[in-house]
C-alpha cells in the first residue's frame, strides 16, 4: 500500500517504518483517516461490530481452553466451565450473549446502510464484503450453537444440515460430508468445532478488506453526498475515536445487562438438556437472529425452493446496488424510499415473529405474505421507486449543511 509517512524523530521507529510501514498504515487508518464531519450515532455501529468480533475471539479462545469437543463430554464440559472454571460462567455467558450482541450490532449496521444508501457507487465492493461477513457470521454462530451439545444444538444441527439434502443430485453427498457420517454425531461435532474456531479468523481477514475498501472510497454520511474538500472532513482521531468510545461504553451496559442480569433470556431452555437422539423437542427453533430467514424457509411448501428462497434472501443484497437506480443515496432526500424502508424493517420484524412460532394456523399465511413482501421490496418496490421518485434538493456540501457556511477548519 503506502510508504512510510510517520512523522517521528525516533530513529528506531523510523528505521522500522521505512522497512515495513506498519505504524504508518495504522496511523493512516485509525488516526488521520479523514471522515465526514457529520456522521451520526448510527455510524458508531461499525466500530461496535469490530469490538464484538474481538470480544468473541477473546472469550472464545479462552472457552476453547476448557471445552471438550466430544459427544459424551461436550455438555458436561460446558457445565464444568460454568461451575468450576474461575469466571467460567462469565466467559460462557459473555460468549453466548456476545453472539446475539454481534448480530444486533451488525443488523443495525446493515439497516444503516440501507437507509443512507451506503451500498451505492462507489461503495459496491465494500457492501459485498459486508454481506460476505454476514454469511460467515451466520455459519460461525450456527456451528457455535452446536458445541454445547444440548437438545437444540443437536436438533437444530439436524434440521439445518438436512436442508442441504434438497439440492438435486449432490444433496446427499453434501449432507454426508457435513455430518462426517450417516447422521449428526461425534464427527459432526468435531468438524463444527474446527470450523467454528477457523471462521472467525476468516472474518477478521474479510473485515480487513472491508476496511481497506472503506478507506479507499471513504465513509458515506447522513446526507449521502460526496466529500467535496477539506472543510467537509475531520480526522478520525480524536473526533470519532472519542465518539465511538462513548458508544462502546453505552453499548457495553446493554451487553452487561444480558450477561449479568438475564443471561439465559435470549436462549432456549431446551439447550440445558443434553442432546438425546431419541427425544425430539416439541418445537425446534433457531436462535433469534436466524428467525426471519427460518420464516422464509418455511413459507415455501417445497424444501428445495424454501432453501433457495432463504439463500436468495441474502444473495439479493449483492444485487442491491443495481436494483436501486437512484443517484441520491440518503433516504433523507428520498421521501418515498424512506417509507418503503420502514415498511421493510417492519416486515423483517414480522418475519422474525413468524419464525418463532410453529408453522400452523394464521402464521402460515402471515409468513407467506411477509416473505412475498421481502422479495417484492428488493425486486419491485426499490427499483420502481428509484426510477419514478422525485427526490428533494441536495445540499451543496456537508460543511454548508451542518455549519450554514464554509468552515475554517
Amino acid at each position, binding site marked *: 500500500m503506502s510508504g512510510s509517512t510517520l512523522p517521528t524523530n525516533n530513529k528506531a521507529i523510523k528505521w522500522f517504518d521505512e522497512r515495513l510501514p506498519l505504524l504508518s498504515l495504522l496511523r493512516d487508518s485509525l488516526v488521520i483517516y479523514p471522515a465526514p*464531519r*457529520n456522521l451520526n450515532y448510527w455510524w458508531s455501529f461499525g466500530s461496535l461490530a469490530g469490538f464484538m468480533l474481538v470480544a468473541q475471539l477473546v472469550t472464545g479462545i479462552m472457552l476453547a481452553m476448557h471445552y471438550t469437543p466430544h459427544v459424551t463430554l461436550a455438555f*458436561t464440559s460446558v*457445565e464444568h466451565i*460454568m*461451575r468450576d472454571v474461575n469466571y467460567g*460462567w*462469565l466467559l460462557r*455467558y459473555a460468549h453466548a450473549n456476545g453472539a446475539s450482541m454481534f448480530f444486533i450490532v451488525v443488523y443495525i449496521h446493515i439497516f444503516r446502510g440501507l437507509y443512507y444508501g451506503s451500498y451505492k457507487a462507489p461503495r459496491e465492493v465494500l457492501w459485498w464484503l459486508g454481506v460476505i461477513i454476514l454469511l460467515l457470521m451466520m455459519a460461525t454462530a450456527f456451528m457455535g450453537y452446536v458445541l454445547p451439545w444440548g437438545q437444540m444444538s443437536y436438533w437444530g444441527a439436524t434440521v439445518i444440515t438436512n436442508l442441504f439434502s434438497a439440492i438435486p443430485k449432490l444433496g446427499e453427498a453434501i449432507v454426508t460430508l457435513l455430518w462426517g457420517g450417516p447422521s449428526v454425531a461425534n464427527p459432526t461435532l468435531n468438524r463444527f468445532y474446527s470450523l467454528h474456531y477457523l471462521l472467525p479468523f476468516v472474518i477478521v481477514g474479510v473485515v480487513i478488506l472491508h476496511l481497506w475498501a472503506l478507506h479507499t472510497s471513504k465513509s458515506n454520511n447522513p446526507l449521502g453526498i460526496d466529500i467535496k474538500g477539506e472543510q467537509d472532513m475531520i480526522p478520525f482521531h*480524536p*473526533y470519532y475515536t*472519542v*465518539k465511538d*468510545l*462513548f458508544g462502546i*461504553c*453505552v453499548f*457495553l*451496559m446493554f451487553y*452487561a*445487562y444480558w*450477561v*449479568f*442480569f438475564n*443471561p*439465559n433470556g435470549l436462549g432456549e*431452555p*431446551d439447550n*440445558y*438438556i443434553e442432546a438425546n437422539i431419541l427425544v425430539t423437542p*416439541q*418445537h425446534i*427453533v433457531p436462535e433469534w437472529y436466524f428467525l426471519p430467514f427460518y420464516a422464509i424457509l418455511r413459507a415455501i411448501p417445497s424444501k428445495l425452493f424454501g432453501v433457495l428462497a432463504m439463500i436468495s434472501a441474502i444473495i439479493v443484497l449483492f444485487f442491491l446496488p443495481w436494483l436501486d437506480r437512484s443517484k441520491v443515496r440518503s433516504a433523507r432526500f428520498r*421521501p*418515498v424510499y424512506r*417509507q*418503503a424502508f*420502514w*415498511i421493510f424493517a*417492519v*416486515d423483517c420484524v*414480522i418475519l422474525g*415473529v413468524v419464525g*418463532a*412460532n*410453529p408453522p400452523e394456523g*394464521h402464521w402460515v399465511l*402471515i409468513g407467506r*405474505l*411477509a416473505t412475498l*413482501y421481502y422479495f417484492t421490496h428488493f425486486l419491485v418496490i426499490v427499483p420502481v*421507486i428509484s426510477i*419514478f*421518485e*422525485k427526490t428533494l434538493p441536495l445540499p451543496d456540501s456537508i*460543511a454548508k449543511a*451542518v*455549519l450554514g457556511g464554509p*468552515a475554517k*477548519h
Partner: protein
Amino acid sequence: MTKMRALFAGAAVALSLGAVPLAALQPARAAEGIAPPALEWPQAGPFGVFDRPALQRGYQVYKEVCAACHSMRLLSYRNLQDIGFSEDQVKAIAAQDQVAVIDDNGDAATRPGLPSDPFHSPFPNENAARASNGGALPPDLSLMAKARKDGTNYLAALLTGFSEPPADVKMADGKYYNEYFPGHQIGMPPPLTADQVTYEDGTAATVPQMAHDVATFLSWAAEPKLEERKRLGLKVMAFLAVLSVLTYLCYRRVRRRVQGH
C-alpha cells in the same frame, strides 16, 4: 407521486393489520401445560440473593425425598459449602455415601464418600431407573430449573399441582394427573406429603413449603454462580455508567473545537 404514497400507506396498513395477532410474541404452546403462577423468589432481581435457610431445607427435601429417584450428577458434596454448610458438615454428609472403588488388590470395594465426590446417583443406569419407575425416566435435576421455561416457578407449581383427574380425562396406567405437566399425565407419583420431612429449624413442613424450598435449592443448583454474577454485574454497571459520562464529556469537549459535529 401521491399515488405512490397512497400505495405505501395502504401497504403499511395491511402490514400492521397482519401484525396485530403478532402481539403473541411467545410461541403458542397449547400442548405444554399451563403457565405456572409467579411466586416471590428472594434470588430474583438485580440485588437477588438466595435464602440460605430455604436452600438448606431444600437440600434436605432433595436428599430425603427426591434423591430416591433423581440424580444430580453435576453437583459434588463440596458445593454444599456454598449454601452455608460448614466444612465438617459437608464431610459428614459426604461420608454417608459409599463410593465404589478398585482396591489395591484390584478387587471391587467401597469407601466412604469425600467432599470431592459427586452426589450419589440412585440408579446405576437408565434401564434400572426406568424399570423402577414404570418405564418413566426420572430426569437428572442438576439443571432442571434452567431446562424448563420459567423453571423455578414451574418446579414449585409441578410439585403442588397434583390432583384427581377431571372426570373426562382417562389416565394411562401408572400416570398421575398434574395440572402443570405438559399433557397433564406424569409418570412421577406425587412426591410430597405434609410432614414428610422434619425441618431442624422448626419450619412447618407443608407441601407448598417443601415445594418452595426444594425449588429454591434446584434453582441454586442450576445457577450456583447467581449471587457472584449479580454482585459483579452491579459493579460493572456502575463502572460503565461513570465511564460513559466521562467519555461523553470528553466527546463534547473535543467536539467543541469543530462546531456542527
